[in-house]
């Protein structure tokens, strides 16, 4: 590994004293960052810490108020994304920017097409060049495959290929493993290592501590716009990194305690659900959850989990099957009736289903209860009751906000989620449905939410936890099932489940065949 040798050359990238102010907040406060050639450098921080802003500055999406950027020792002014790309900086976003109906090669050359003459695109040449590039780096990609037919992991490779095609020297990846299975994550790490050995610099934005420790050469921790520290993985631990990120000691795994499941609370029988395109996303699923039990549903996003959850809480009409809550048939109940029946729901897409971002915090706290006393008398809203209740909840759930009257959009992701949690959890619940409850949240908020969920379970609520975050599922579930292509393909005990087994179920729908005679698999 030639990482130390590259330390004698000027760093591939230097950001010195970068400061960026927005109204009311200093997003980047005199940040220094240097990334060497052939290095994988991780940028670690909570949501709202300033990592994305810093990368936006690098990519030309934002102009810094102070500070300089140097590429290979030369000061540069980056005018915009096109300029950044021309200088060899590429960014792979969390949400891919690919055109599903075009092929891999077409997507890669988009914007810098190989031309046959002045008008026509030379597709054959593009396909050849892309194929060669892919082979060189050990990608397993068919340049002519339609992007829509590729798995998420492969789509991400197409994004990376786009960067490589443009002779990228500095590759920035924003939360690259958010949508990957454990196996795909391993593969991507191996790929990044190969790219780094080839002389490229890689900036890896993440909030996942163990991944950062595994793949990075150096880690820079940012908190509230400032660089808090820089570490080598060999010199630090998850605990120290978490503390640096959050500013206090953080419990990384919440003690799930013992569950004392009671009677059967939720019964789902042969539930069939269609997706938005009228395909059967869930061809028939059956399961039970008992009171005081957490059922974790693992699975890569897009295997029917959202449709299943929406059908249970009333946002989507099922095609068939039955849902019973404590004996009462609630199949097809509207969201309001489910809510009144004692069901709480934390949606995956919190900006779409969970909150009205433009509205004040107090309105979002009564989004499901605004129509009944004490928040309304007939048609007239009781503003005082609403405000009092909101202030009490902000206090109880430690929601960081300047006040309850501010638009909810001004809150950080973690606090927005706390608003939803306060609204849904702050009453006795028979069933609690959570879909990706900690996606995009910082370590402190994750800890908080896990605690609240376990408290609800201990109070007797049946909990359905759907999460693509395998560690979350493994950490707090009492029982685990895996969803693959709309079916539940495995059921395991939460305490003893093996991470790679679950990962395999998530990726392929089955475990590898166990060789005859080998029974001692844990």
């Amino acid at each position, binding site marked *: 590994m030639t990482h130390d040798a590259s330390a004698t050359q000027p760093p591939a990238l230097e950001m010195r004293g970068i400061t960026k102010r927005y109204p009311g907040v200093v997003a980047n406060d005199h940040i220094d960052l240097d990334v060497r050639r052939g290095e994988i450098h991780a940028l670690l921080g909570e949501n709202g810490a300033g990592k994305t802003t810093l990368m936006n500055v690098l990519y030309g999406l934002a102009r810094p108020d102070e500070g300089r950027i140097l590429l290979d020792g030369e000061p540069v002014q980056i005018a915009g994304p096109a300029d950044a790309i021309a200088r060899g900086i590429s960014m792979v976003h969390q949400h891919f920017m690919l055109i599903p109906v075009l092929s891999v090669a077409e997507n890669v050359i988009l914007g810098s097409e190989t031309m046959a003459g002045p008008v026509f695109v030379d597709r054959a040449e593009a396909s050849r060049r892309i194929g060669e590039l892919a082979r060189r780096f050990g990608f397993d990609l068919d340049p002519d495959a339609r992007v829509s037919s590729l798995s998420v992991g492969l789509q991400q490779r197409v994004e990376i290929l786009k960067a490589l095609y443009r002779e990228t020297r500095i590759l920035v990846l924003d939360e690259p493993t958010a949508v990957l299975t454990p196996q795909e994550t391993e593969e991507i790490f191996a790929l990044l290592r190969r790219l780094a050995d080839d002389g490229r610099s890689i900036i890896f934005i993440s909030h996942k501590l163990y991944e950062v420790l595994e793949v990075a050469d150096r880690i820079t921790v940012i908190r509230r716009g400032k660089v808090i520290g820089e570490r080598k993985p060999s010199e630090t631990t998850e605990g120290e990194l978490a503390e640096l990120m959050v500013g206090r000691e953080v419990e990384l795994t919440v003690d799930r305690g013992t569950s004392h499941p009671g009677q059967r609370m939720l019964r789902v029988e042969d539930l069939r659900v269609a997706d938005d395109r009228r395909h059967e996303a869930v061809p028939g699923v059956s399961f039970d959850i008992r009171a005081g039990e957490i059922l974790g549903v693992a699975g890569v996003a897009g295997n029917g989990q959202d449709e299943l959850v929406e059908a249970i809480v009333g946002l989507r009409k099922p095609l068939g099957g039955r849902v019973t809550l404590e004996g009462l048939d609630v199949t097809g109940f509207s969201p*309001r009736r489910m809510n009144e029946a004692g069901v709480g729901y934390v949606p995956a897409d919190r900006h779409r289903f969970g909150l009205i971002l433009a509205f004040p915090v107090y309105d979002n706290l009564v989004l499901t209860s605004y129509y009944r006393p004490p928040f309304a008398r007939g048609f007239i809203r009781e503003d005082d009751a609403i405000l009092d209740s909101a202030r009490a909840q902000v206090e109880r759930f430690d929601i960081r906000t300047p006040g309850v009257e501010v638009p909810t959009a001004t809150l950080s992701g973690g606090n927005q989620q706390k608003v939803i949690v306060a609204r849904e959890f702050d009453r006795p619940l028979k069933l609690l449905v959570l879909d990706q409850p900690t996606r995009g949240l910082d370590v402190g908020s994750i800890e908080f939410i896990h605690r609240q969920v376990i408290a609800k379970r201990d109070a007797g609520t049946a909990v359905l936890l759907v999460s693509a975050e395998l560690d979350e599922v493994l950490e707090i579930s009492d029982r685990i099932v895996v969803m693959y292509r709309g079916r539940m393909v495995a059921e395991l005990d939460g305490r003893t489940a093996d991470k790679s087994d679950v990962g395999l179920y998530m990726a392929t729908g089955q475990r590898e065949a166990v060789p005859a005679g080998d029974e001692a698999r844990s």
Partner: protein
Amino acid sequence: MARRFLDGKVLQSLAEPVAAIVFALLAGGIGIALFSAYVPGHSAFDVGLPIQAYQSLIGGFASANGITSTLVYATPLALAGLGVAIGFRAGLFNIGGRGQFLIGAVGAMAVVTWIGRDAGPWITIPLALLVGAALGGFAGFIPGLLKATSGAHEVVTTIMLNYVFLFVMAWSVLGPLTLPGAPQPITVDVSMRNGALPILLGPNGLIDFGRGGHVGLLIALAAVPIMWFLLFRTTIGFEIRAAGANPDAARYGGMKTRRLIVLTMTLAGFMCGLAGATTLLGVVHEMTPGYDTTIGFDAITVALLGRSNPIGVGLAALLLGAMRAGSQAMQIQAGVPAELVDALQAIILLFLVVNVLRRIMASRRRRPGSAAPAQAAAMPATGGAA
């Protein structure tokens, strides 16, 4: 919530409309100066002319007559503006103000024509207003229902219906509502049939001040706080605003968004129909087949200028009404055509729309991934919860 009036939020939301008005006045002033050669008695590029023009404009609405004219012009602007504004709050674009206004006039005229002579003013007038407003509501109900059930975009359906109601009105004047024996097709004069709105402010009115200030202005005056209360203090108002801000979250909160679409469009049409009925009974008193109005476009300007807030809409209606009222004086005294006021109104509207776009782009550039700008873009006319 009254606290909000005292903090920077209100000042911030005033900035855009005020900027729009100032910009329009400047642009108008430049326009006047550029073409001053065409005004008799002035040389080219006479910078004194815009000043003179604006002075007479203001003088035009500062007199007693000017004030009552302002109120009279402002009445339908406020009523229809409230209708359009409540549509904006729900994320709906009611471009059907013209048709709803006209069919509202037809409804009022029908009542007066058929029962006015025998029923007396105390029954005829309220009934005429009610029927007119109800017909306007029906005119809004149709596109609302179409949108709720089939997704048909209300911009298309309301514009198309404008033509339908325009011709229904023409047909009714030529047919069932025609005045027998008249040399040209025309309806009855409502003042002959106990249908004219009593004058509040005027030489024969309750208060001898100005001229032509009919009772309709009290209706508009009452409508503003009522709408404000509906929108911000009731559960229905909350649902309307929620459905406009984020229909998915509104659905999750248990709100019946399709019903809200129908309700809001009906209410919008009701208000525009009421505008038509009051204008007929208060000002014009009779209709010809060619009767028409620019209220559809004016109400949108008023609603945007007022940021879809009923209080703002009321103030915006007064402003535009004042400009109308002063335009005659401006033409007479300064020689600048009264149509300049229409041009100023259009520039204000243009400025507001452009400004809105600029805000959306600024917030999108700031946070490329977040959903908040996308939601803000969905309600360009309100620019926030206020």
